[in-house]
């Protein structure tokens, strides 16, 4: 059986090599933290959940099945961790949603108001703006956008992580993009 880079690292970790775990953590830290932070939108909670994720991964690494991609297995654990938190703290997350909308509006009024819309915005600013909008859409759409674009996963991988049918995943991502488009239009961008 040919092992990919992640699986080689995992073998070494299971043999007791601490530095390989550090390497694995460095590789996934940015994507995992990014996903968690955009889901819970609270830095302290995101730090705590990211730490919990890596500790959990290390503790149950012996259960990992080498027939499957490590990233899919890891993202499923991360997804479950976050969704559990979101479900338990729905009211708190909703209050953050309200804050975030007003933050976005403030950001728009301060930095993004341009007479001719997006052409006047710097590319980086526009990218930041669009990802700000992503942070404000409902969780059930946001999670799929994050898995698809932040983690770069395919529809079938997302379906396996979220335990949703592939068709539902696809439809929700289409719907999410429609919501994003509407939000962006309402903000007067992309005209």
């Amino acid at each position: 059986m040919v092992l990919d880079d992640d699986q080689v690292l995992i073998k070494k970790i299971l043999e007791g090599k601490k530095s390989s775990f550090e390497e694995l953590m460095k590789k996934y830290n940015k994507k995992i933290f990014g996903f968690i932070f955009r889901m819970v939108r609270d830095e302290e909670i995101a730090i705590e959940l990211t730490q919990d994720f890596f500790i959990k991964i290390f503790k149950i690494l012996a259960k990992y099945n080498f027939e499957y991609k490590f990233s899919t297995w890891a993202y499923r654990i991360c997804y479950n961790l976050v969704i559990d938190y979101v479900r338990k703290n729905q009211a708190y997350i909703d209050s953050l949603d309200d804050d975030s909308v007003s933050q976005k509006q403030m950001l728009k009024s301060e930095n993004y108001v341009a007479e001719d819309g997006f052409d006047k915005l710097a590319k980086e600013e526009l990218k930041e703006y669009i990802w700000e909008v992503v942070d404000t859409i409902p969780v059930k759409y946001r999670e799929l956008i994050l898995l698809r674009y932040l983690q770069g996963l395919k529809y079938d991988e997302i379906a396996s992580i979220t335990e949703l049918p592939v068709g539902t995943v696809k439809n929700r991502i289409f719907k999410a993009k429609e919501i994003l488009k509407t939000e962006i239009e309402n903000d007067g961008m992309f005209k």
Partner: protein
Amino acid sequence: MMECLNNEKIQEYINGELTTVENAMVRDHLIICKKCRFEYEYYERLEKYLEDPVYIKPPEVIERNVLKALFPRIPALSSVLALIAASFTLIITWIYIYFDFANNSIIQALQITSSKTSNFIASVIKIISTIFSAVYAIFKIINAFIDAVFKVNIGVEIIGLLTFMMFISFFYLISRIIFKKIKGANA
């Protein structure tokens, strides 16, 4: 003429998820329909920005805390050995000084007895006795010096204790520096 495209079809076209025939039909429709072309360009832009995500830099504290939780630091073996050795030396020396063994009749008797049975043991006792006598003499001089300058009689025992505490700290620190260097060279 083909009917106008719905959003789903446009997104599937952008993602390359259509069959060859469907793809050709959508492409032809986009050439002639301004409204659908506008929608297509909108989604295409959105797709481009989504495919280039803005990552948030994770705080360094995450890696540090995870490693601390999973691999708690245990004192280096050399440090532990250094501490044990230094503590042992301290206790022996302290007892020696406190009971003034250099001039103690028991030690002198031991020296005389051992010289009759084993020259080696007698030599070892004599060497140790000489070293401690010298150390004891140094402590006495320090004590006399402090007494003369500061008019404070600390006592030989306290000076001995303070000196050996400093010795332990120094021994401990040196051993840790050496161990770190060896560890760094092997990494």
